Structure formats: C-alpha cells, structure tokens
C-alpha cells in the first residue's frame, strides 16, 4: 500500500476556532458533484413551476385585474413570482434535503469527521442553495420580459437580491429542519409558515388594502423586502427605501445563521 505519490495528511495552521473557507469549498465540491447528477430534474422543477404560476396568474387574473400601480398585471406578478421562486428554491431544500442528509443518510457525520465544523457546514449548505436560488429566481423575470416587461440595467441586481434572500431562507429551512422532531411535522412548517410567507409579501397583490396588522406583519416578512427590492429593480430604484429593505434582509440572514448553526450543532454534536 505504501506509495510516495501522495504526501501524508497535514493539519491546517489556522488558529483553533477560526472560521475557514477551505471546508466551505470542500462541502461545495460535494454539492457540485451531486448537482451534476441531478441538475435536469432540479432545474425543471425550479424553473417550470414559477413560470406556470406566472402564466396562469398573469393571463388568468391579468384579464380581470388589468393593471396595478400603472403596470400590467403580468409585469407586477412577474416580479413578485421571482421572490416566490426564491422562497421555494431555498426554503424547501434547506428544510427537507438537510433533514434527509442528517437523519437518513448520515452524510453530515461523514463530513464532520473531516476537518469541517458545523458553522462551515451550515454556511456551505446554505451558500449552495442560495447560488441556485440566485440563478433559478431570475427565470420568471426573463419570462416576464418575453411577455413585454421592459428590460432595465437595474434588473442585473435581481440575481444578487435572490442570492442573499435565498441564503437567508435556506438558513431558515436548515434551522427548522434541525428543530422538528420528525419529517411528518414539517407539514406544520409548510402550511403554517411557508404559505403565509408568500401570501403576505405582495407577490400576487399589493398589500395597500390589507388591514394594518397584516401590513405590520409584512414588515417582518423577509420575502416582502425581497419583493419590494425586485420590483424596484424592475420598475425603478428608490435608494433609501431599498437600502432599508436590503438591511432588513441582511438582519434576517444574520439572525437565521446564528439559529441554524446553534440548532444544527445541538443535533450533530452531543
């Protein structure tokens, strides 16, 4: 077995306890290898579903609603569905894939036996999911452009908005996946959290006519801030308001990163 072709293992020299990017890259390498096997069905589900929503609501409801705030309904909803797509392509993998890998596949045990810690593992898993959300989230916007939405340079911000929001919702999913006692209890999260999240975010209709409490609730819904940012990127930026929306999303990311790391550590390290 002895060979001289590969040197023996060497330890990292960073001080103990320091966050490192090398393990993050290692976990991402695994994600990439897995994605190369499953990109077709993953992409199909991530792209086709929001496009169907867009076409069905855009043309179906659009013929009844006409215009909202001076924009054709299909343009209004096209920007809203970007956020919905981001939510679905980040929250579900964060919630379900992470649970399956942890509980059924024991994949994280294998990775944590290597020089990877829980913070790096969680960051890498959420980053990969966010990367996909950043790309897939743009599909409804491209379809809306094909149906007449005027392209703007500021729309180039949409992948970034989708990426950061997707990172947050992936972390939220990871946190909840480590919180639930069984896979069956995820139904509470799907029906009790995810559905209200995308309905009280201004995706399908503006929140202006909602009661005060619903509008207040929207302010703490990160998806609402994502919807606003995407809409402004498509129809015209409002710098101060958008900085506020972006700050709200960053605060959400910081909070759920801490929660996800804390809860995953509790599950993975006894």
């Amino acid at each position, binding site marked *: 077995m002895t060979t001289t072709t590969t040197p023996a293992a060497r330890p*990292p020299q960073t001080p103990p306890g320091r966050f490192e990017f*090398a393990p993050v890259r*290692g976990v991402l390498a695994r994600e990439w290898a897995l994605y190369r096997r499953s990109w077709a069905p993953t992409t199909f589900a991530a792209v086709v579903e929001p496009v169907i929503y867009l076409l069905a609501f855009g043309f179906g409801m659009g013929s009844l609603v006409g215009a909202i705030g001076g924009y054709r309904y299909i343009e209004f909803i096209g920007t809203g569905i970007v956020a919905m797509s981001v939510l679905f392509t980040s929250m579900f993998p964060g919630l379900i894939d992470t649970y399956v890998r942890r509980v059924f596949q024991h994949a994280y045990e*294998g990775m944590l*036996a290597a020089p990877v810690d829980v913070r790096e593992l969680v960051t890498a898993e959420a980053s990969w999911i966010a990367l996909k959300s950043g790309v897939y989230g743009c599909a409804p916007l491209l379809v809306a452009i094909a149906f007449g939405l005027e392209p703007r340079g500021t729309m180039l911000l949409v992948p970034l908005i989708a990426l950061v929001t997707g990172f947050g919702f992936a972390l939220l999913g990871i946190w909840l996946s480590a919180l639930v006692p069984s896979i069956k209890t995820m139904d509470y999260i799907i029906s009790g959290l995810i559905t209200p999240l995308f309905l009280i975010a201004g995706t399908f209709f503006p929140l202006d006519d909602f009661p005060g409490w619903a509008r207040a609730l929207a302010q703490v819904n990160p998806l609402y801030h994502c919807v606003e940012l995407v809409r402004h990127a498509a129809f015209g930026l409002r710098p101060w308001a958008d900085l506020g929306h972006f700050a709200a999303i960053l605060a959400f990311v910081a909070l759920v990163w801490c929660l996800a790391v804390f809860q995953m550590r509790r599950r993975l390290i006894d």
Partner: protein
Amino acid sequence: MTSSRLRAPSETLAPATSSAVSLRGVVKRFGSFTAVDGLDLEVAAGTVLGLLGPNGAGKSTTMRMLTAQSRADEGEITILGHRIPRESKRARALMGVVPQHDNLDEELTVRENLTVFTHLYRVPRGERPAAVQRALRMAHLEDRADTRTDKLSGGMRRRLLIARGLVHRPRVVLLDEPTVGLDPQIRQELWGLITELREDGVTVLMSTHYIEEAERLSDEVALMAKGRVVSRGAPAELVQRYAGRAVEEFPAAPTDLERLERLLRPTGLPTRRTGASLAVLRAEELPDSVRDEIGEGDRRAANLEDVFVTLTGETVE
C-alpha cells in the same frame, strides 16, 4: 476569517508524544445514563488497538468523542498531541474515520466519492488525482472507479468507505465496527486491508464486537464494558493471564452443573456456563483430586472470548 494554508510536514508536527491517541479519565453522560465512565486509554503510535466489547459498552461513543462529534463531560483527550475538542479540526485533518453507518453518496461514482473527500481533507489540487488513484488501488476498486456507488456490492461499498477514510493518508485511523453485518468472506477481504494499514505504520483504533477480528488484527486489545476498560494487553497475553492455556468443557444437566461448580469452587479456577456445559478456564491447573471427582471434559485451547466473558460476564460474537 482565513483560508487554510498548508505547511511542510516538518512545520506541522504537534508536540512530541509517545501515544498517538490518549484518553484520560473520560466521562460521557446522556442524562442519567453514563455511556463512558472514567475511560483511560492510550494507543501507541504505529500500533493497532482493538476496542472489544458488547453493544452498549461505550465503544461508539468513544469513537464519536475522538472526532469531537460527542463532547466529553470530564477528562482529557488528545490525538497526535492535539487536544480535543479545542484543536479537533487539526486532529481530524490527520485522522481517517471509517464510520459504522454506510454514508456514501449513492448517486456519485466511486471516484467522485473519493474526490469529494480529497476536497474535505484539503489534499492540494495537484495531488488529488494521485490520492484518488492510490485509494482506488488500495481498496481494489480500480476497475469500478466510474461505477455509481448504488451499483456496488456490500463488500465493495465497505471497501470504498475504508478507502474514503484513507484518501488523505492519515496518520491515525478510527475504524468503528468496520465489518459489522458483513459476510465472513467479505470480512476476510477487509481484514486484509486493515493488515496492510498496520504494515504501513498507521496507528489504528478499531472498535469491534467480533472476538476473532480483535484477536487477528490487533497488537493489543482493550476489553470494554459499561464504559470502562476492564483489561488490556496483547491477545495471547490476555488469554494466558485470565484463561490459561486450556479450557475444559463439561456437558451436564443443570443440576449437575451446580454440583460441578461447587466442586470446583475451592480450586479458585474461573468457570463459566456455556449453554448446557460448564467451561473451566486454566484447566491445566486442575488438581488431580478434583479431576478424580469430575472426570475428563472436552479440552480446547483458551481464547479471547473466554477472557471477555470471564471479565465482564457478558457475551460477544
């Protein structure tokens, strides 16, 4: 935040220590249950130590503590001079772990599974292909390199699992029940692999509940029960110390077994019931006076199982 930088091996050596793995007074509790209860264990560099014990003895918890996936409530753990859990990442970079659960990525090929772990173990980019090739060769999986893992047989998967833990040429290898649930033929194959590791000077800590496995592969065996090491030594030495050269088995009805035990008690020789017979350890020391009373039994060489059962009162496979 800093990305890792790898230095030449001479710069990276931990403080000199005679033990590659050291556990001192380690305690691990789960609520009111104490899984590991004051464990002291040293594994000398370049040796194979078999951790032998029945299910629930604390072997897997010990293994998890060594990879910092379980935190000790008390005691001190070091691996190659690195303290666990504080410096566990450094220790894990030098360690290979073969888990009890098969957690291979099924959709990936054999080569891809190994390549992923070269990334996780930070094998430099230019050295990854050679590292994968070496691991494939070692596990005799070269002709299966591009086969999806879910198409492999159980034995091949186990070999891949071992190869994955060795892809970065670790200095310490933890094998957690490496052959559990496998056919005898596949087990023999894996024993060959583990023997090669020993010949290569790698330090191996192997938990098992198979007597034969511990006996054949280990330089030393630590017998574990109820979270503690109850005895330790080379297999032959342990057998000699606790069971002597020979064991004599006396098949008898239950009432006769009690009579035999009564007759043997004054000799001080250890005995144990094995189904419908009574085994007398260190049978070569049986006094003639007792022999006249109990007659001749079925004589066989003493083995590690006799030692284990005598020391712990529990049975193992």
